[in-house]
């Protein structure tokens, strides 16, 4: 079996030679051993071009987080190759991974500090990032003093602090109320347009995927495979309640239902 994760951190590779920022080539991931092995991913091939916004959807347990972990380099594929051509990759975890002993500001500050941002610049940067997620009044609160949605927004600010060129997001807005989520969609879209970031975004919410992505990739469950891809044609800025978004979302939802039904079938 081949086990390779390549991270090409060469500047030459990063400047537009047309090669994708993320490529997965026949990637499989098996957890556990022969008896009770879980085939989380099965020969998944996916290219994400530089500057693209790709949304990944699929039923619970179909291997979305596993895929992000492989791209982030936190785990190795069982077979196949994962290539990431980026200066810096940042991952926003599905569960809040904030450090409980640090305040919201402290968490963001630590990310900057580990990036060797000089102390004198850090205070302003932390404030900017908190403003971006609309938490400027909550910087001195510790994670346990924040609501679930606020923790997600703090984690988003911390992920953005790293100035990564590839951003991996695992259901980042799951705990947000609809209004805050819409606002953060706008912020994220604006940021993406401004910076030319490459984003791989996992979500359960089909409308959210269509609202944000250039492409929506649908995964099937156990083993996780790519079922279908949908390009999203409508222009930006988009609105989550626009008719084009709703229309494509309905098509994808039907397909997703079909996949889930197939699993409910005892013969499969």
């Amino acid at each position, binding site marked *: 079996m081949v086990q390779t994760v390549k991270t090409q951190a060469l500047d030459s590779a990063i400047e537009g030679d047309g090669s994708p920022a993320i490529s997965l080539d026949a990637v499989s991931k098996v957890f556990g051993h022969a008896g009770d092995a879980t085939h989380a991913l099965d020969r998944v091939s996916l290219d994400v071009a530089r500057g693209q916004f790709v949304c990944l959807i699929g039923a619970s347990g179909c291997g979305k987080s596993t895929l992000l972990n492989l791209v982030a380099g936190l785990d190795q594929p069982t077979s196949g190759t994962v290539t990431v051509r980026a200066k810096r990759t940042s991952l926003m975890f599905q569960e809040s991974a904030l450090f409980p002993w640090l305040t919201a500001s402290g968490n963001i500050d630590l*990310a900057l500090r*580990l990036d060797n941002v000089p102390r004198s610049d850090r205070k302003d940067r932390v404030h900017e990032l908190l403003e971006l997620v609309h938490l400027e009044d*909550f910087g001195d609160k*510790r994670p346990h003093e924040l609501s679930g949605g606020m923790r997600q927004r703090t984690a988003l600010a911390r992920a953005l602090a*790293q100035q990564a060129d590839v951003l991996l997001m695992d259901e980042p807005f799951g705990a947000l109320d609809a*209004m805050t989520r819409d*606002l953060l969609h706008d912020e994220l879209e604006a940021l993406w347009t401004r910076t030319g970031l490459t984003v791989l975004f996992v979500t359960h919410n089909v409308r959210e995927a269509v609202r944000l992505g250039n492409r929506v990739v649908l995964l099937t469950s156990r083993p996780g495979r790519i079922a279908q891809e949908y390009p999203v044609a409508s222009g930006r800025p988009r609105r989550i309640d626009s008719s084009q978004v709703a229309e494509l979302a309905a098509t994808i939802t039907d397909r997703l239902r079909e996949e889930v039904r197939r699993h409910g079938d005892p013969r499969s």
Partner: protein
Amino acid sequence: MATLEAELAGLDALELSVPPRKSRASRTWTTIWPKLGAIAIALLLWQLIVWSGWKPTYLLPGPVAVFQTLFDHLGDYVSAAAVTLQRAAIGFAVALVTGTLVGALVTKSRILRSAVGSMITGLMTMPSIAWFPAAIILFGLKESAILFVIVIGAAPSIANGFIAGVDNTPPLLVRAARMLGAKGFTAFRLVVLPAALPTYIGGLKQGWAFAWRSLLAGELLVLIAGKESLGRDLDTARQFGDYKAVYATMIVILVIGILVDSLVFGQVERRIRRRYGLVDAAATD
């Protein structure tokens, strides 16, 4: 956009409803009265046993007589306690350094872990008094014999607290640190150590209890000429049949042990647990 942000701020304010905080005095009173009540009940029980006539009062004097003795000789008790506390401080400091170092080495080395890991727990089950014969043989009737036993009593708890704290660092936080670019020692210092702190403080607290017990056992057994200490007082009082002084000394030992445990370690532990969000806010106030 401006109204949207105002609405958002309104939502955030709703999400964080802050319960009204009680005044400092009333909070202090709430934490203190159960303790005062417990002390009152204990003294009452003691007095009831004396009144029952189970033992003649010269063998078991009542609380009033014992506290009378305590206050009459308060100066002596204070100076004896000072000697004992100084030994405790030195012994605990050495145990702190040793325990932490051993803990750090064990967490860093796989070989040391399998070699020493279970031995540390083994050491904790050894009653400290069983070390004294060896300590006296090796160090003589000297302070160093007492010190040795304090350290060997307290250091394993401290090392264990350190190791358990490091081992229980949530893997998610370690991965988050990795994504933020923290590797090796930086990740250890900035993430693993802070994550281990609450458990480590628990180890220190337990280490103190072991140190204090070993120390008093030591002062009873290792009589160092000319130096008054709480353990020595206890032994002298018993030998000369001054039973009121025996009980008075015991009260001093108990009170110091409790005060250090709750005021020093208890406070630090509570503060850290609150800071880390490890206490249920609704249950504490």
